[in-house]
């Protein structure tokens, strides 16, 4: 468990080092995600890597544990709204309306694109 968490933190740390070191325009944890993904894929290719947290579902279980309560992790940031009450009073309704419309538009456009692309693909396959 500790080794698995260390591996996750290590990936994040490596991500931060690379992002800061090279001045990349992306957040460290995203690069960390890529590292962990590559590590898991490499483990299947090279048996020598399958040790410690990379065996017996170690890092997989730790990750599942973290992701099981994903929405809890957003609570502290969300409570930050108490600091923004002046902004809420001034622009609150406009911000809420803008976010709500943007969410609905994004949901509809994304789901439509997925379905259209998926239909075009299967038609392309079944066509001679």
């Amino acid at each position, binding site marked *: 468990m500790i080794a698995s968490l260390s591996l996750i933190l290590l990936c994040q740390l490596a991500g931060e080092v690379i992002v800061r070191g090279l001045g990349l325009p992306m957040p460290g944890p995203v690069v960390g995600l890529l590292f962990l993904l590559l590590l898991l894929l490499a483990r299947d290719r090279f048996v020598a890597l399958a040790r410690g947290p990379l065996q017996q579902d170690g890092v997989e279980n730790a990750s599942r544990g*973290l992701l099981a309560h994903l929405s809890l992790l957003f609570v502290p940031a*969300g409570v*930050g709204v108490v600091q923004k009450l002046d902004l809420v009073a001034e622009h609150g309704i406009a911000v809420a309306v803008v976010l709500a419309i943007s969410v609905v538009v994004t949901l509809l456009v994304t789901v439509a694109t997925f379905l259209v692309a998926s239909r075009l693909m299967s038609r392309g396959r079944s066509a001679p």
Partner: protein
Amino acid sequence: MSANPFSLWVYLSQSPLLWLTVTLLVYATTDALSLVTHRHPLANPVLHSIWIIGAFLMLTGTSYTTYFGGAQFVHFLLGPATVALAVPLYENRKVVAAAILPMLAALVVGSVTAVVSVVLLAEAVGLPRAVVLSLAPKSVTAGVAMGISESLHADPSLTAVAVVLTGIMGAIIVTPLMNRIGITDFRARGFAVGIAAHGIGTARAFQVDAVAGVFAGIAMSLNALVTSLLVPLAVTLLVR
């Protein structure tokens, strides 16, 4: 027993222990209530935790900084949780590979829509530039969005609030919306909510359908990558 209950309160209200306990306890309660209502969209545990904790802070005159002293231990886990998204991506690599083209198309179109729609709408209603910049990355997970906001010299704490608000809205609206327009492909439904409403939407998708949850998780991690590249570009092109 303490001679003066007030001095005990003064001590506890400054300690991380109290605020970490309050955060977990309130979330555990709202999550249990959400379960009792069979995961009704409006019983969203994040939404209700936020207003209950916020009201408690205001009633006790506690500053957000003091509260965050305890809650930071939970907040810190957003980074490792982003890294952990590699695991559902890895475990579903076959499903992902099979649906790679629709996913890539929906990813690109969806990410662009999420960023462009919010920037254009915010400018149209005349919000100040600092607010527009802070809203731009609202569809990605909090840790990533705050990083983007920081690199734009916007207000990361405002971005965090916008991210959470977006997530809650997406999680509440997705099921009734998709049912209304008759979408039955849970891969597409999950992917859409992952793009539009990141982790809170993904948590919602897992409650509704396992396949939807997996696709939401994938969409959320891919969106974190695309949006961090897209927002600086969109902001240069769109914000006056």
